[in-house]
């Protein structure tokens, strides 16, 4: 398999690391090699959090700019901040309820690079289900409505069920599905 590079971004406390864990575990369960990098410590005190995930036969845990196939962002500004990571033809999935996404300043660049942007109000989806902390799973569900490789809807769902703490497992799956529904509607 060709190497698949992903970058996940957001703010401390939004569940970036859990989202990374789900994607990584799902890939592992499919027999893929996984390597990734996280930020801890100082960066988590309200700062920007970035997580890198690479699937395939590689040695370095960091994604080089211009080479990420996917950028998943739990916050709009953190999506913009990490645009340089996206490769030509990459896809950006962002949690935002802003009508003007993506900002007009970045549109020419994204078009030129053939980068597709898809937005979902993941925080709102999660809050509506009384699980405001699960916007990460809503975004993941949304993502899985468009992408089926290297890990797709079924793989992710199975993994969420497996790695969620028992008290939040059911609601996690529900929020994930709600995100997926959003994506499916948007696709049609």
């Amino acid at each position, binding site marked *: 398999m060709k190497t698949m590079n992903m970058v996940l971004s957001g703010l401390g406390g939004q569940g970036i690391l859990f989202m990374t864990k789900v994607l990584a575990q799902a890939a592992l369960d499919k027999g893929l090699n996984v390597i990734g990098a996280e930020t801890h410590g100082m960066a988590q005190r309200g700062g920007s959090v970035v997580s890198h995930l690479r699937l395939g036969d590689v040695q370095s*845990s960091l994604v080089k700019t211009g080479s990420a196939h996917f950028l998943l962002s739990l916050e709009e500004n953190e999506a913009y901040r990490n645009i340089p990571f996206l490769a030509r033809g990459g896809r950006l999935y962002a949690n935002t309820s802003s009508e003007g996404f993506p900002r007009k300043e970045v549109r020419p*660049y994204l078009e030129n690079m053939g980068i597709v942007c898809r937005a979902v109000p993941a925080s709102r989806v999660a809050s509506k289900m009384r699980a405001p902390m699960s916007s990460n799973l809503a975004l993941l569900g949304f993502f899985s409505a468009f992408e089926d490789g290297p890990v797709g809807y079924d793989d992710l769902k199975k993994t969420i069920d497996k790695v969620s703490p028992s008290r939040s497992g059911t609601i996690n799956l529900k929020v994930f599905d709600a995100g997926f529904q959003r994506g499916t509607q948007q696709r049609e």
Partner: protein
Amino acid sequence: MGNGAIALGLMEARCQVVTSYPGTPSSEILPEVVRLVKSEGLNTYVEWSTNEKVALDTAFAASISGKRAACCMKQVGLNVAADSLLSAAYLGTIGGLLIISCDDPGPHSSQTEQDTRLMARLAKVPVLDPSNPREAREMAKLALDISEEFRIPVILRPAIRVCHARQDLKWDHFKGSKRKASFKKDPARWAATPRFRLILHGELNNKLKEIGGRFERLAAFNFHDLQKDKKYPLGIISSGVPYSVVRDILSEERREDIPILKIGTPYPFPERLAGDFMSACEKVLVLEETDTVIEYFLRDRKRVLGRLSGDVPAEGELVPDVIYEVINGVLRESGLEPLNSGGVKEAFALVKGLDLPVRKPTLCPGCPHRGAFFAIRKARPKAIYTSDIGCYTLGINQGAVDTCLDMGAAITMASGFYHSFAQDHVDQPIVATIGDSTFFHSGTAGLLNAVYNNARFILVILDNQTTAMTGMQPTPALGIRADGSRGRSIPLERVVAGCGIDFIEVVDPYNIKEMTELIKKATEYVSDPSGGIAVIIARHPCVIAYREKALLQRKKVIVTEDCVECNFCLDRFGCPALYRDEELARTSVNQSLCVECGVCLEICPKGAIVEGQYVPGEKGQ
């Protein structure tokens, strides 16, 4: 996680004693050891030591009792343990002794970017430099073997991108060691006097020579991909994390014309292997983190490109983009074909032009330190604020932190400031802040010294009953040990009193008014000729570690129309839940961030922050 891989390596190598003081990026190693010890039913001894020197001394004693031992710390922690390390290198070991010192190029969460490999060179102990978690696990095992075979402490230095990288690993069950402790008295060695130290130094040098020979043949970690009798215009020598990056870039670009020498053991340096590589390449580029180590070991300086020649940045992390640019620069300069997958420079310019919010790290909403800093600045606005290493360094955002040097320096520097001003007959107010765990780590020696030498200042111990910054490890006051079992609790008050302090008061920093009054009282004591150093223990549980206990009384907070936009609350209190609402043109509360601690109710000069009913859907509130 890399730290988990290291823990696994330790347990597979039947390490019987593991000690540590937490510090990013090393903090997860010990908890991972605990997890493995429990799941495999081992009897490994684990402890959170009070500091890194204590951790190393403890592990050293285990080693000379014949057991395999390891101690884990961050790179600046090794400075604290340096005294122990340099001496232990001379004395040698019995059971394998591994020191894991985790580096932080960047730096992401440290006061320096120092390179542990240089410390290994200074101490004359072998050092292994893993490139990824898998290798870190294997190296941990090898390091313990080498340590035991040659009777020398060995250092493993994973960088943050190894410690906090995740990689798939397979492992099987394993058994613990049945080795029993036995100490054979040999004072000439274990309590060696200077005369014997000279002999031991000779022994150490011989050990290093032998280990150097072994490393020449250590093909698992030191290897190159030269083709026989082929000559190359350029080769790359790399170690640690940069090696992984170089390997990925060159294989993506299919650059078989550039050979790589990977060095897993920077010291003792495999000179012959490097010599072979050098003679096949006209020039070599050295890519290593964070300082120059390998580069210094290559004698033919004219053919070496690196930091000394100005081709590699002398500070900062060697992330893929930096390495890409360095390689490309060297290729161009040498008239070789450049790499061709770069080129998103315009994206950086674009992002820069977006004026995205700069996200300063801040204390969490509800953090008890915030109230303490607010009270300190209010009560002693003209003081010099010496502070220390921990979350509370972020009191800098409230203008209540002026210095941060190293662990324990809040107290020692307060002392130094006092004497410097007192010498000129200037009565300079000084308020020192230090966390509970940092105080236990290295506060007492400084406090004893300050008391003994008649210094005068206020010391506020910010007691949130945990080591918060590094991930909520317990402190000696808590009386909970690394494996969760009960330890003996040592109250801060007793330690402070033992240091010769007579003024000890405890206050809840959630109560700003009370704390402000107390600081004023302490000020009087400090300036009284018969007074001394005043210690205030600002005690309130960390809101992240103990949410329920920290927030016993929840108070809904709103901002009224009395707000005059003076921004006092944003500047001096700086809670992330308070923000300027552009539409309302005043300060507002972000209800999803607010934890309802209610501390901000006391701070507004206009009384615009009040307890109130939040109406969902109402804009801004």
